């Protein structure tokens, strides 16, 4: 029982981590949106597994919300945004594709190193997945720093949120429901605000290249 639980959770976590590499490896924005949608659904799956085996009925609600909000609603909004800005392709990021993938790998190793004490401390069957969640967080942060298009950054941020949720689920079987709801609200509102910003950036610069924002300083 514990073994299947543990294996299922590790499997799910690895899948979610893999999806973030799509952001570093592919060029087109529709791929990113799909990756995010699938990542959220897998995350919902992991949450359901923990809800069932860990006997936390609250987490069913969380999983449902994940599917609805992050699996369906936000990807829809992202697709709409992407259609509006003519689906620009991420052509020249700060760090090129190969180097990005190597750095991402190194970051995952770093995540393992950092999470050693956490794993050692935890008694839960899901502890093996925690380094993967940490890795997801660090790689998402890297995406934020190295990509120039605003939509990519937004998606990177959303994946970061997923990583944090995964860490919470694996580390403590989730956080109190009220906190989860708060975080969802936060993510949703943040996304809406970012939508407005991307629109404004486009209005001002006729492009969603975030680097152009530094022109505003003078």
């Amino acid at each position, binding site marked *: 029982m514990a073994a299947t639980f543990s294996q299922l959770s590790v499997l799910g976590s690895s899948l979610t981590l893999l999806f973030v590499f799509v952001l570093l490896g592919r060029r087109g924005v529709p791929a990113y949106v799909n990756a995010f949608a699938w990542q959220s659904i897998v995350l919902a799956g992991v949450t359901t597994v923990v809800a069932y085996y860990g006997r936390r009925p609250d987490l069913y609600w969380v999983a449902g919300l994940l599917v609805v909000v992050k699996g369906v609603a936000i990807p829809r909004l992202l697709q709409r945004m992407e259609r509006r800005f003519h689906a620009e392709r991420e052509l020249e990021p*700060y760090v090129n594709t190969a180097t990005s993938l190597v750095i991402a790998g190194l970051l995952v190793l*770093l995540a393992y*190193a*950092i999470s*050693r*004490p956490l794993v050692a401390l935890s008694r839960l069957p899901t502890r093996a997945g925690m380094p993967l969640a940490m890795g997801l967080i*660090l790689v998402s*942060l*890297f995406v*934020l*720093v*190295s990509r*120039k298009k605003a939509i990519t950054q937004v998606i990177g941020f959303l994946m970061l949120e997923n990583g944090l949720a995964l860490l919470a689920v694996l580390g403590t079987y989730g956080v109190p429901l009220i906190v989860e709801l708060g975080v969802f609200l936060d993510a949703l509102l943040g996304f809406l605000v970012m939508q407005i910003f991307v629109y404004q950036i486009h209005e001002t610069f006729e492009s969603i290249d*975030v*680097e152009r*924002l*530094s022109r*505003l*300083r003078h």
Partner: protein
Amino acid sequence: MALTLPLFLAMVLGHVVGAGGALLAPTRAGARGLTTLGAIVGGAAGLVLGFDTLIWGTPFRLEIPQLLAVAGGVSLHLDRLGAFFLLVVEVVAIPSALFGGAYSRVYEGTHSLRPLGVMLNLFLLALSLVPLADNVVTFLLLWELMSVASYFLVLTESDRRETRQAGLWYLAMAHGGLVLLMAAFLLLAASAPSTGFADLRTAAAALPAHTRNTVFVLVLLGFGSKAGLVPLHVWLPLAHPAAPSHVSALMSGVMIKMGVYGLLRVALDLLGGGPPWWGGTILAAGVVSALLGVLYALMEQDLKRLLAYSSVENMGIIFLGIGAGLLFQSYGLTALALLGLVAGLYHVLNHACFKGLLFLGSGAVLHATHTRNMEELGGLIKGMPRTAFCFLVGAAAISGLPPLNGFVSEWLVFQALLGGPQLPRPELGLIMAFAVAMLALTSGLAAACFVKAFGITFLAMPRSVHAAGAHEVPLAMQLGMGALAVACGALGVGCTLVVPSLGAVVAGLGGLPAGLMTGMPGLTLEMPGTVGVIAPAALAAGLLLVPVAVLVAFRLGGVDRRLRVGDTWGCGRIGQTPRMEYTATAFAEPLRRVFAELYRPTEDLSIDFHPESKYFVQSIAYRSEVHPWFERLLYAPIVSFLRRMAFRVRWLQAGSLHLYLLYMILALVVLLLVSRWTS
């Protein structure tokens, strides 16, 4: 206990409904109406709750440990001290809300009323709940809510540059004070098992002296800046005039009193009093504030800024009473300590009433004439008779004229200071004597200031078209002002009913004995510790009786009853224009000359001579300004230092979004590595 919980819920719910209604109501009039209704309902519930606890001692306690469990949960407890301040809040809140309902119509079309309504209700809610907070987190959260809500209220007219500046100063100083308070509470809570006030109280008894002194200094600075103690008062004359008038009434009448509440709560209740220099410092700060406040109020032409400086003065008087009380308490003279504290608390209530009334009055003037500048007003008493009467009551009360309420509390402060000779050290007694003199000077100057405020604004002829066209304000506004005017009179004449409750408020705190106030005679005001006795009710009766007797005597004595209306004597000149009246600047000019060393007015005189001859003058331009030199001396160096530092650090802000993100991520990674390799 049966009534208190429903009352509390009604209070909270009233304000929440008011805020929600302001946001969601379909029409603007509906938004205004719901705001006012919610505020009044919440206020009335709070008033009854406060009365219940103050008069009958019904305790109220509410704990919600699940909310903010990390920081100790939300904990509310109403004791007599809190109940008194809750009463002060609601006494001003209800008339102000009523006034504001009609007053905010002025903003329709130019500014959005919905944020105003939401923030007003949140502000009132925070104000009502601060006296109930029973642990550190609840207190700080509600304090911050109070500051932030009032900041947004101050910024209602944000299209004006001076309003935005006022908001900036206000926010900066409020948060500076908050940081000091957080430090103080952290020091107190460090050695206590939890952050509840009961635990802090027991733990504070065991704290070493230097920690207690540090906490006191931090709390004095933090709460003193909220209360407007000189030199931390600079935000008051900026923020209070900039806010809408009913908000100014709330801020000046109630919010600054929360500084007094906080100081009493920490210094007297939690710390239980301290060495004599605590009371002495508060007393000295009170004297300085009172004098400087009234001196700068005298020089003002802006009606609302004059009232703001006058608030600084009255807070000085309050701190005078409280400082004297704490000083006596540190020497064990409990009757005198009670007297001083009761005097300070009574002045809190009285000032709330008459300052609220005066600000509402100035709001009425602003509503009718669209100007706050006294040099453009005049003659309003004919067009706005009821407003003028209410303002007159407020002006007489704040000048301390018998038999109104300001006089009673100033008398009590005098009596407290007159107990100075009983202190074991004669130097302290002399300082109290000096304080008596300064208090009397302040009193006289306040009377001068309000003769100017009322006389120039309401009497004689209108000095501009705005003033000439003034007419009476809507009924709701008149009712708000009238309620406070009645309160001023009632608190003066009925003081013998109020003072025992005030004694009960402070009894039991800081080692002061309860039961010292029992058995007071009905009509005369006398407390254990006073060296005199007065009977304001009898005074009022006498003052009303004499004119009646005179009129009867006139009738009986066959005195000539004719009356004819004529021109004002003008030394034989024909006609009279408003230019011939005294101006506000001119009225205060003798005092400006007397205190010129303090004011250091700048003067700029330029004379244009006729091109042909030096003996013929074409025009003379005279410009004189009185700037409070605190800002130049104290704050300007701080602000310029901050500017220089900020400029130096500017290179960090390269303007690139990625760079900022990189900073954050690097910081996170460094932190994780550090924690990993040092665990």
